[in-house]
């Protein structure tokens, strides 16, 4: 069965520093991968999504992610963190092998705290 692992439950980063959030997936077939962000007291919002093709995908607010089939990973990066990036970040994989749908398996999430 498919699964997603986010090994870091919490990450603290200084404003202006770079950020990397790790995601490892287990999936039989061609994975479709996503990063969602959950700001305090809000619903989840899509940051970026990967379809088979270019391994580096660009998202909103300066985020990007890199897919690696050999490492079964889909790590999220940002060059310079802003205080507004304080949120919980979720990696997810699409479970639907017959086509795309919102039937997603999510990781446990990584809480990002930004300090000045």
């Amino acid at each position: 069965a498919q699964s997603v692992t986010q090994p870091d439950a919490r990450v603290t980063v200084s404003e202006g520093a770079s950020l990397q959030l790790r995601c490892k997936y287990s999936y039989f077939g061609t994975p479709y991968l996503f990063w969602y962000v959950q700001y305090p007291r809000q619903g989840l919002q899509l940051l970026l999504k990967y379809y088979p093709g270019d391994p580096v995908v660009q998202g909103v607010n300066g985020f990007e992610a890199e897919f690696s089939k050999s490492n079964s990973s889909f790590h999220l990066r940002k060059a310079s963190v802003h205080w507004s990036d304080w949120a919980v970040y979720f990696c997810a994989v699409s479970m639907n092998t017959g086509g795309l749908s919102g039937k997603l398996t999510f990781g446990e999430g990584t809480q990002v705290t930004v300090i000045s």
Partner: protein
Amino acid sequence: EAGVTQSPRYAVLQEGQAVSFWCDPISGHDTLYWYQQPRDQGPQLLVYFRDEAVIDNSQLPSDRFSAVRPKGTNSTLKIQSAKQGDTATYLCASSQTGASAETLYFGSGTRLTVL
């Protein structure tokens, strides 16, 4: 464009009580999802609909949970006899079949506490 609307925002119950959650998806979105998010965990799919039809409810605890979407628009998720283990945030999401079917738009959720 209005987003996904959920109500109530919070619910506090004793074990054994019933509760219903309501969701209004984005206008025109034919697919609606209910996810359960326990504290400090990722969302887990309970059930999803395309129009009024249930597509997958395999993760829905059928003895106590039920979900309907009678006209293919709004949806209600009901817990018949709540247990402490049901304490979680219940998220509704919607999407549109097509090229971006996997792009979910989430509501703010209903935070349930079962005492």
